[in-house]
Structures are given as structure tokens and as C-alpha cells.
């Protein structure tokens, strides 16, 4: 087996390295900086150059080696390379080749370009380990133009009512993607500290993003009525939010596709924005790998594996501790877990 599944995570015996492990290990190959994939406590880390700044920002003083997309690295008897996953800036699928047999770990991915992340690169392989966070046919994402129209439309409407728009977004990836969809001619864009910190890290590595104004104690909110505020989901409904006066709240997530979830969030508006592949994306990505063996990790694993088997794949389920796109109120942590 090129890769095996252990208590600590996905393991490559030939390289003696783990991929996105959830227990402390000697050598961790990290697909991207989200906290359920890049955890604290490993002795050595390997990530893409573009993912490294955020990982350093979040995990602090770690031993982190970087790798360019497509660069082939010999590790024991294995050859390792990282390829764009289209999930967030710097995110990667990890390709592992041992004795001519190729396995690919998708990490989190999406197949449609978001104008921010390096576009997803389909890889041929023998075995593909795929996420399936949204692995049911009810999930279909709108295109970026539709999203931009909906979000800016809501902002204009909110502004016309003299209210401030507060949009709940995850600090890494979605916040910056939404930033690029916003029309800065409508008004000022304000950011919660957690969002601003990650945005600043990405700006520093050369990613062009519209100007934002961090919300600080010193900022006079009265002069910014009608602004768009990007905040982590946990800030919606918090004491922090109340200082903006009259607001309209929105939440950006793939789960907003479901009416029940939209209503449970009790946000005024839900926007269907996800950095994970939708049903069509998952199916096309898997078909393009040419792989016969598919392992599904997190999401609707039972249903999606059954579907894949019905399509003729040899599909199995792997229990992992990846969270996918979580709806829980726990914000993405800026500190080690």
C-alpha cells in the first residue's frame, strides 16, 4: 500500500510521513492551512510556498519546509509532489508515487476557479483519496458572477435602509474570495480582527485584495454606517456586532443551499459560497483521475461511496478527523488547539 490509514492519520510507509495528521507525528505533509488539516505539535512540516505564511501565522514557531507546485521531492522510496487544489490560496493535493504506483490525497478542493486560489489541477492516479463534504446531488453552486450580484445587491439594499451589512465568512479563503466579489464603489469594507489578520498575511505574500478597514476600538463606526463588514461566523449575534447599530446579517456557506440551515442560522440572508467541490465538481474530479480505487474521507461518505460503487468504482470510506465546512460556532482558531 502506498498509503495506509492509521490512528494518527493518512500514512505513507515508504516516506515515513503522514498527510494532514491529527496526532503529533515526526513528519507532516500539510495540504493547506485550515485548522483541521494543519495541526499543532508535529516535529517537521512540509507545505506549499503559498500556504506557508498562513500556517506560520497560525501555528507560530514550527519547523516548516516549503515546496513549489509540481516540484518532485524524493522522500525515502516515495516521490512526493504538491498540486493546486483550488480550495484556498496555497492549498494542495498531495501526489505520492512509490514504485510506479500513484496515490493522490485531495485535501479539501473545488474544481471551479474562484479568482483567488491557484486553479484545481486534475491528476491521473491509481488511487484517489477524496473529500466529499458536499457529496449529494442537492449541492450545486452558483457561478461567481451570480454570487457577486447577490451579495452586492444585498449590500446596496441594506445601505439604502441605513443599515450595516455584516457577512459571516471564514477567515482563511472565503473572506478573501468574498472581498474580491465585493464592489468597493458601494461603500467602505470593514473587517473583524480575525479576518483582517489572515487577509494581511495573504496581502503580504502578494495577493491583490481590495482595501479594508479593520474594526478597532478607535474606529468611529458612526461614520461608516452602510458599510460591509466581514466577520467570522461566531461574531454574528455577538456583543461585538451590537456596536454597529441597525444591521442586516448574512452568512456565506455551502450549507446555505438548504432552507432549514438558513433558517436555523437566523441570519437575514444566506449566500451559497463554498470552497469545497459541489456534486458535479466531485464527480468530474474523480472521473478525471482515472483512478479505480477511491477512498472518501469526510462528508456524506456512506452515500457518496455507494454512489461511486454504483458507477463502477472500487470505493471505500476512511474515518478521519477532518471537519470539512463546519457550521459550528467555533471560529477557526488562531491559536493552537
Amino acid at each position, binding site marked *: 500500500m502506498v498509503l495506509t490509514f492509521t490512528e494518527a492519520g493518512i500514512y505513507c510507509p515508504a516516506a515515513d510521513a503522514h498527510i494532514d495528521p491529527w496526532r503529533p507525528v515526526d513528519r507532516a505533509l500539510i495540504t493547506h492551512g485550515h485548522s483541521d488539516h494543519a495541526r499543532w505539535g508535529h516535529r517537521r512540516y512540509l507545505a506549499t510556498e503559498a500556504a506557508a505564511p498562513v500556517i506560520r501565522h497560525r501555528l507560530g514557531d514550527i519547523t516548516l519546509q516549503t515546496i513549489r507546485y509540481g516540484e518532485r521531492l524524493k522522500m525515502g522510496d516515495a516521490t512526493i509532489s504538491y498540486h493546486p487544489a483550488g480550495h484556498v490560496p496555497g492549498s494542495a493535493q498531495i501526489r505520492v508515487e512509490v514504485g510506479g504506483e500513484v496515490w493522490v490525497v485531495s485535501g479539501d478542493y473545488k474544481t471551479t476557479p474562484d479568482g483567488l486560489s491557484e486553479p484545481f489541477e486534475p491528476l491521473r492516479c491509481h488511487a484517489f483519496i477524496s473529500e466529499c463534504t458536499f457529496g449529494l446531488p*442537492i449541492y450545486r453552486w452558483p457561478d461567481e458572477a451570480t454570487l457577486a450580484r447577490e451579495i452586492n445587491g444585498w449590500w446596496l439594499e441594506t445601505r439604502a435602509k441605513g443599515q450595516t451589512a455584516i457577512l459571516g465568512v471564514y477567515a482563511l479563503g472565503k473572506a478573501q474570495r468574498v472581498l474580491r466579489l465585493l464592489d468597493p464603489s458601494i461603500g467602505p469594507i470593514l473587517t473583524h480582527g480575525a479576518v483582517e489578520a489572515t487577509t494581511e498575511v495573504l496581502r503580504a505574500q502578494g495577493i491583490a485584495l481590495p482595501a479594508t478597514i479593520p474594526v478597532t476600538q478607535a474606529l468611529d463606526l458612526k461614520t461608516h454606517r452602510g458599510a460591509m463588514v466581514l466577520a467570522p461566523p461566531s461574531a454574528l449575534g455577538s456583543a461585538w456586532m451590537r456596536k454597529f447599530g441597525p444591521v442586516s446579517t448574512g452568512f456565506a456557506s455551502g450549507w446555505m443551499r438548504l432552507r432549514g440551515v438558513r433558517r436555523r442560522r437566523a441570519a437575514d440572508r444566506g449566500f451559497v459560497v463554498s470552497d469545497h467541490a459541489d456534486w458535479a465538481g466531485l464527480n468530474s474530479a474523480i472521473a478525471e483521475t482515472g483512478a479505480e480505487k477511491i477512498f472518501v474521507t469526510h462528508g456524506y461518505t456512506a*452515500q457518496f461511496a455507494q454512489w461511486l460503487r454504483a458507477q463502477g468504482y472500487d470505493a471505500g470510506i476512511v474515518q478521519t478527523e477532518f471537519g470539512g465546512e463546519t457550521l459550528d460556532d467555533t471560529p477557526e482558531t488562531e491559536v493552537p488547539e
Partner: protein
Amino acid sequence: MKDFAALFTTLDQTTKTSVKTAALAEYFRTAPEDDRLWTVALLSGRRPRRSITSTRLREWAAERAGISLWLFEACYPVVGDLSETIALVLPPPATQIEKSLTGWITALRALDKADDPTRKDFVFTAWDGLAPTERFVFNKLITGGWRMGVSQKLMTRALAQATGIDEAELTHRLMGDWSPDRITWDGLITAPDPAADLSRPYPFSLAHPLEDAPETLGPVTDWIAEHKWDGIRGQLILRGGDHHLWSRGEELMTDRFPELAQLTDFLPHGTVIDGEVLAWNNAADTPLGFSSLQPRIGRKTVPKKLLTDAPVIVMAYDLLEWQGADIRDWPLSRRRATLATALFDLPLGLPLRLSPPVPAQDWTDLAQARATARDIGAEGLMLKRAASPYLPGRRRGDWWKWKLDPLTIDAVMIYAQAGSGRRATLYTDFTFAVRDGEALVPFTKAYSGLTDAEFREITAWVRKNTTDRFGPVRAVRPEHVFEIAFEGIQASPRHKSGVALRFPRMARWRRDKPVAEANTLDDLKAMLAQYG
């Protein structure tokens, strides 16, 4: 249907009742009359008769989406709503059909006599010509069961705003057996004829649970106390030589309780009684448990054996109409005195009796009567202000339910299942077990009582502690103990544990208790012996 779909979207996007009311009122002012009338009908639970089964809809949706039926079925519990599941799996629409709400309803009803291929063709064409929200609305018109986040009360308030008619008066006008087919907007809303619908009930008055000490209600002499019976609330209407029985959910239940027909021979025309329908043990002169009543609720025609096994009576506690006059503004003491007189001369054995007042010198007497209520098959006491009129809806102040504290048992969670609708992404439906030696015996399910935060926490735990899966149900490590509260317990051969609970819910997450300290099957049996 675009304007109706837009109304739906507006209502769906806000949780503020003021915004909802304003949007609805605007719709009632501007929409065509027939669409308005249908909207009132839909929002008060009067859906058009179903011409297409949900089985067909599921098959057709899977076919149109190009997926297998099992996969469609796997999507349904995640979404929690059939109409929405269909709307989500279908490919985007190719055309745009313009048709009003009434137009669609009429077209759907015309399918009543059509054959299957015609129906399928109609549905496919509709799906292909409707925008996503309209599609969802269209599916809802077929499957029924509307909510739209609008209560009947809110709808009535919007209607009052739009028409200038008093809200309480509108509430009454909207009650009863009407349908947009047989009535006009004017006939229902603006200029109704009271004689047109002899079966029309009055809006029910509802009680609040008493949370403070009863002494806070003032002198006991201001109050009339009676037992809180555990049956089905019903309004018995005797008008024009006929009788009608309405449930609190405004469902006509007359045919389910044929033994009440004889009452028309004994009570005068123009009598409306509010009371509780109870299955009654004539020999012991006590109520049979609620579980005896259950088989009678489910069926439209009643076999003879059931009539003998579970005969029903109406336990009357209020009089709303007497000799053809609406007497709801009389004080309760006078209404009850009139009711007592009316029932006094009835021959014994009729399925109608007066819910006897519980006499009391002071609140201590009532506390005692409440404590022993379970002995006569009641759930506690009702306290009603003697001077109060009969007001519609649930208001604070005049009617209180003073229920017994629930029974409780500490149980171990062993299975979990995701909820539906707004709880589709959370594990909310759990099965609980009691200990029996080393074994765990499941005895009840419960799905309410925890906070959203607790549900999120237990959901994360369930994901990591699943030991087995049976379809949507997950077996979990037996680690967590919950205090289960319930209102009653009865023997049940259908359950493995031999008992069935009434209104079980999670009262508390007992994080302090290890599984070894959860209650046992013997404890449960002891409760059955005492309260069953």
C-alpha cells in the same frame, strides 16, 4: 406565480414579525382576489386535494435529475423537506412559464382525472419552466403542508391591517369548514353571512403554564379550578339539528366519534361546548389512558369493537353559545353555571358530563388536589379566572395550566439520528436505554429539551463515537446519561422494554453521572406499577 414566490422569499428571509406582517398585508392589498383567497386558505392549512402521490413525485424527480431513486431518498433526510429536495436536485429551468397561483392550483386539480403519463408530462413541463423558488412553491402546492414561517395569527393580523376589520372578528370568520371553491373573498372576509356555515367553531382559548407560585394569582376565590384532563381538546357544536366536533387544530372529527350523535336529542339547538374528548372506563368511572384514545384518533370509520373497547365522552368545561347566542363575553362563572344547568337533567350514560370543579378553601387545598391528580388520570389542574370572558388564543392572565411535575428517569443514549428541516445537519433524535444487568434495554426516543449549543456538542461527539450504522441511525458508545422527563407511563407490548412513555423529552444532560448510575429496567417497571 412570480409575485407569490416573491412573497414567500420575503417571508422566508426575515425572522421579524413586523416585516412579515407588512409583506403579507401588502400582498392582501394588491394581489388578485382569487390569489388572495387561496393564500388565506393555504396559510390556514386548507390545501387543495392532492392529485399526485409523493411516491410518483420522488420517482419523477430522480428521473429528471438523472440519479437513482435511492440517492434521491438519501438526500431527503438531509434536506428534511420533499418539495425542497426536488427543487434542489432538478437541473436549472430551460424556459419560463407565466401562470398565477390560482392558475397553477386549478391546473393541478384538473389532473385529478388524468392518467399517469399526462400528470408526469404536466409536472416535467412545470419543473422545466419555473425558477427555483417558484418550483419549490409548486411542489408545496402538490404535497401540501405549508408553513412559510407564518402562523395563522400573523396572517390574520396582516389581513386585519389590509382590510381594517377587527382581528378577533377575522379569526372567527376564518374558522370552520370553508374552501376557496365555494366562497368568495367578500363572502369570507368582508361581508360574511353567519348562517352560511352552521358548523363554524369559535377560536379556542388556550392556557399558559403556571410558573410562579399559585399564591401570586391572588385570592383563591377569584378562581375556578378543575382537573386537567389528558385527552383531545374539542369543540362540540349543536346547531340546526346536526352536531360537529372540532379539534383544536381545526380538524373536523365528527365521524370519528359517532357516539356523540345522540346528544342532538338531548341538548337544544344553538349550543356550543368546549371540553376534552376522553376514552372512558364506564365500569370504574375513570378515564382510560391516552393510549386507549389513540386508535380512535387515527381512523375515520370506527369498527364496533373499538367503540366498545374505548368508548369516548366529552368532559365539558365551558359553554360558548347558548340558545343560539354567542355568550363568550359572559364571565366564566355565569357560563359554567349555565353549562351545569344544561347538563344537570341529562340521563345517565350519555357521553357528555361536566368537568367537576375542584373545591378549595385556600391554595393548599388545590396544591393537594394537584398532587393527587394522577390518581384519577388527570395531568394536574386548570385554573381559570371566574370573572373572565372567553378570549381567543393564548394570552397570559386568565387561564393557567398547573401541571404535575413530570416523572423522570436517568437513561443512557445508545442511538442517534439526524433531525429534519432546520435540524437536518444535527443529531437530534436519540434512543435511550435503561440498564438490565450488563445489557442496555432501549425504552424511549426523545428529540427535544437540549439547547442548540448542546445539540451541536452532542452532534460532534456522535460523529466521533459511532460504533455502527443502520441506514440513517448510528449506534454510539454508551457513555452519556440524560435525565428523561415524561408525563405518563403505560404498558406496551409493542416495545421491547414493555412500556410506552407520554411526551418524553431530555430534561438535562447528566454529565455528572456515569452509565453505571443510570436507572434500571426494574426502576422502570416499578414506575409502571405505580403510575401505569
